[in-house]
């Protein structure tokens, strides 16, 4: 060091210390701020219900608004429409670019899959969408060109594939079934840094080579507006399903994150890390220690472009998601890998990857009632949740179910890049009960659980924890005294409502309550609280189903109760401790011998350490489903109310059918207009519309006079029965041909249904309940056509009055 302006003058030491002391107060105040650490109920919502709702709300005006970052395996979110254009000789094509999120995604060896495409709240049938193109080279040196449905059947498990990595044009898919058949074409871009410009969007003059959207996951869409007949698989005519600018929602994997641990494959193998580079996912490598699990750490730096073979992948593990956000220097905190404590992160990641009852091979208990979970022996090691919504297919086709990992830490996030890093990091941490102190130059991560860092299902006893405690405080190493603070009523809850994102139900805002009033715990808590209702309300948008939400609520309630705190000072000998550590305090002074978890730790200049810790009850962190409720009634109610629900209602196909049971009954006008006689033919005409959306349709009625081949349009009505009147007397005795067709709201129409009727009938007689023709052709010789019949007018009462024109049809 060169010149130094700091000279030694040891004066005013007291003043310097005074300044420091003032700062201490500030620091302590900040430390007591309501930011969450571990399982805690913040004074403000880290998440709000609006966060959940906004995720699936379509934004047509995204200008300069934050693009979300999506984390998770099956994330549902509305796309942000950043480009819209029309083309075609009749403006029949609508091109749309829908941004899904930032960052590259790859959830399987051949790329991420689109699990659901929802347009205007209707599921698009994408399972057998035809496509051709290049599967991107996620597998080194491989560039596979495939076309037709086999492209997805072979490589995407039946779902359309994202692509773009390596500069390869992703496949173009065309919807071939369901209500959007032949009317939607799309391409899926994986958000890689080198993805090419969409050749689908390039059909618009405005979309040029420089519109690559590198690093952005998006869907390119081409909608076709046509009233031409398109027949579905049953031969029914599909009407134009569009009304205005389509609202598009997708269910797709989130972005890649650095993997710390791969999902468990079997009981005996333990956890493995997937470094597989083969297409068929063979060749897993078994490792024996956590330090070997992370390819990302061994590479030494974070990568925005890494694929599965590089140790990155899509994840529902909140630890891996947190790690990605902390390392990402585009939208995240941008920390160096050297700032992350690998061992503690891996331990926490393993804990988040474990399944219930894995050692006993039992399945999640709720499985016995509702089959939400896969109960087969094969899946015992991977008891996925089976989502009960229709995925990838519209309502009239076979239901597809899909699994997500069934462990209590499974999370998904749609992160707002417009909020601060601290807010987002706290959101991740709070969703898993994570504690992340910065010690010795690194961020360490501890899950607040019963006491085993890498296994939240392990519930060590209080005695076990005491015997294995790394640090025991007694009256000998406690300086001064101990301040003991009881839990307070204002921070205790006897019931908690937890709001979560219901993946099973179109990712809408939903909630669970724990304990339910039928649960014995509720009665016990109320009695302990002198009958006072202490009800909390917390939102965690990263929780995706009711069972996981109930577990989270249970831990929050139990932890809030009897939350005893202690504060004491000790010597430098405790320097090795960090926040989150479990300690034993055995003090004869106040007669306690309990386990505590360190909340804050303050070290002063002279080495003295102040420890602030809260009582640790290992049984509060029981994540096993068998203990979620204390009786069968609560259990059954929970299943019925939250898990065993009917499928989400899906829009039925927009087929349109020709009217059936078409009849024309001649009646005598009982109140003929002045100058007319009852000899004029009047008809009651009826038909039935068996179209699915019959209530939305209208109907055009036409008739043809006895002597010509011209059809005259009588008009259009909304009803399916009308009174047709004012047929001129010259028709009398002739055969009239009626026909009617169904018209959809978008202008599509069915084929005509035809019937004939005869105007002949004895004067003064009324034909009741008789279907014409009666005595057909009897009066035909007398029939002559005169002018006057023409386009009719639809009246509000269902009648049509014949008009003037004679349109040829």
């Amino acid at each position, binding site marked *: *060091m*060169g*010149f*130094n302006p*700091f*000279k*030694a003058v*040891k*004066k005013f*030491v007291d*003043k*310097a210390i005074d*300044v420091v002391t003032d*700062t201490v107060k500030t620091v302590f105040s*900040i*430390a007591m701020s309501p930011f969450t*650490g571990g399982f805690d109920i913040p004074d403000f919502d880290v998440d709000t219900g609006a966060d959940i709702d906004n995720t699936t709300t379509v934004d*047509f005006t995204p*200008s*300069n*608004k*934050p*693009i979300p970052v999506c984390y998770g395996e099956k994330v549902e979110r509305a796309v*942000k429409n950043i480009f*819209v254009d029309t083309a075609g000789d*009749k*403006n*029949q094509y*609508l091109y749309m670019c829908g*941004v899904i999120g*930032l960052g590259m995604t790859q959830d399987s060896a051949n790329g991420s899959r689109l699990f659901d495409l929802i347009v205007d709240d209707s599921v698009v049938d994408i399972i057998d969408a035809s496509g051709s193109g290049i599967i991107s080279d996620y597998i080194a040196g491989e560039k596979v060109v495939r076309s037709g449905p086999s492209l997805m059947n072979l490589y995407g498990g039946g779902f359309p594939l994202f692509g773009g990595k390596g500069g390869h044009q992703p496949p173009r898919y065309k919807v071939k079934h369901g209500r959007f058949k032949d009317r939607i074409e799309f391409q899926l871009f994986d958000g890689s840094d080198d993805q090419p410009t969409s050749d689908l969007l390039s059909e618009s003059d*405005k979309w*040029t080579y420089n*519109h690559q959207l*590198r*690093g952005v996951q998006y869907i390119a869409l081409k909608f076709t507006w046509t009233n031409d007949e398109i027949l579905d698989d049953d031969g029914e005519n599909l009407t134009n399903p569009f009304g205005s*600018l389509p609202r598009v929602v997708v269910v797709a994997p989130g972005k890649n994150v650095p993997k710390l641990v791969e999902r468990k494959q079997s009981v005996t193998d333990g956890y493995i890390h997937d470094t597989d580079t083969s297409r068929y996912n063979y060749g897993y490598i078994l490792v024996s220690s956590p330090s070997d699990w992370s390819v990302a750490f061994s590479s030494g730096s974070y990568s925005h472009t890494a694929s599965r073979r590089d140790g990155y992948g899509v994840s529902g593990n909140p630890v891996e998601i947190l790690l990605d956000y902390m390392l990402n220097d*585009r939208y995240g905190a941008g920390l160096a890998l050297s700032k992350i404590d690998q061992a503690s992160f891996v331990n926490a990641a393993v804990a988040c990857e474990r399944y219930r009852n894995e050692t006993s091979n039992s399945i999640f208990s709720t499985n016995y009632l509702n089959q939400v979970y896969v109960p087969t022996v094969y899946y015992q090691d991977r008891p996925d949740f089976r989502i009960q919504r229709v995925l990838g297919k519209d309502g009239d086709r076979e239901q597809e179910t899909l699994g997500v990992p069934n462990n209590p830490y499974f999370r998904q996030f749609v992160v707002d*890049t417009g*909020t601060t*890093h601290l807010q987002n990091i706290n959101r991740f*941490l709070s969703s898993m009960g994570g504690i*992340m*102190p*910065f*010690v*010795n130059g690194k961020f*360490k991560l501890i899950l607040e659980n019963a006491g085993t860092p890498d296994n939240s299902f392990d519930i060590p006893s209080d005695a076990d924890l005491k015997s294995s405690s790394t640090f025991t405080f007694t009256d000998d190493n406690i300086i001064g005294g101990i301040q003991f603070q009881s839990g307070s009523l204002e921070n205790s809850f006897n019931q908690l409502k937890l709001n979560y994102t219901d993946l099973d139900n179109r990712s809408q805002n939903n909630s669970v309550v724990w304990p339910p009033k039928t649960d014995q715990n509720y009665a016990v808590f109320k009695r302990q609280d002198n009958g006072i209702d202490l009800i909390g309300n917390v939102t965690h948008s990263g929780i995706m189903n009711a069972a996981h939400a109930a577990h989270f609520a249970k831990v929050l309630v139990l932890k809030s109760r009897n939350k005893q705190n202690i504060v004491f000072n000790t*010597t430098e*000998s405790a*320097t*090795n*401790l*960090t926040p989150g550590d479990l300690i034993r305090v055995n003090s004869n002074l106040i007669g306690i011998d309990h386990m505590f*978890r360190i*909340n*804050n730790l*303050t070290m*002063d200049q002279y*080495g003295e350490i102040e420890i602030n810790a809260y009582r640790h009850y290992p049984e509060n962190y029981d994540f096993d489903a068998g203990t979620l409720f204390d009786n069968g009634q609560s259990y059954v109610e929970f299943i019925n109310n939250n898990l065993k629900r009917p499928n989400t209602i899906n829009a039925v196909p927009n087929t349109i059918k020709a009217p059936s049971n078409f009849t024309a009954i001649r009646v005598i006008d009982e109140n003929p207009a002045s100058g007319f006689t009852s000899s004029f033919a009047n008809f009651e005409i009826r038909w039935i519309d068996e179209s699915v959306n019959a209530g939305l349709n209208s109907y055009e009625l036409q008739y043809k006079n006895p002597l010509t081949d011209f059809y005259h349009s009588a008009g259009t009505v909304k009803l399916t029965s009308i009174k047709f009147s004012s047929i001129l007397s010259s028709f009398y005795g002739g055969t009239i041909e009626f026909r009617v067709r169904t018209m959809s709201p978008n202008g599509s129409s069915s084929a005509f249904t035809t019937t004939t009727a005869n105007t002949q009938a004895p004067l003064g007689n009324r034909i009741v309940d008789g279907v014409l023709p009666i005595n057909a052709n009897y009066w035909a010789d007398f029939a002559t056509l005169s002018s006057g019949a023409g386009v009719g007018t639809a009246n509000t009462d269902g009648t049509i009055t014949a008009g003037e024109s004679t349109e040829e049809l």
Partner: protein
Amino acid sequence: MTRDIGSSAQDGLSASTRRVFDLISIKSQDGNNLFVIGTDSTVSELLFTNCEVNLTHAGETFNANLGYIAHSPITESSNAINEKVSFTIDGVDLSNAETILNANFIGANANIKKVVVGADYSFTSDEVYEVFDGFINSFNLTADKETANLRLECGGPFSAFEKNSIYGYASVLSHQVVFNNDKGFEFSNKTLTDLQWGKQ
């Protein structure tokens, strides 16, 4: 989980007598100098200790008797919060006061380590452990006729987390922070009016 302090340091801290001192470093993060004296004398890092003698660790000499006395208590919390630490340099030489006032302290890395030393001030690297690493958030200089004090306030590792990014917005400007020439968001600000779709 523990701090992973070396066993020698733990033994020293548990001993009945122990001497623990601070090793303070203030370093420019961007390669620029903290301040420049005159035209060519530059200072890119400051190293202090409150030990009676200079201490050398990892090839760097931490200077004693330059006015560093103590840091404020350091709080580590289970909460992800932006903790603050301050320390005061006493007896600052005011002959170059303007240089200090214009110094490039803000944003510089501030690091505090503890060292457990023997009676002869000897120690090994195993007896050094870090207790704070952050950034200088602000500083103030207080002077009177007898001396001057420089107080440096530091934000903890979470201080940079109070920010958000420029990248990640639906605009060309934001996107081109990372991807030059990419115009993918060019049309995101176009108002959708009079869209003629299906008007045959």
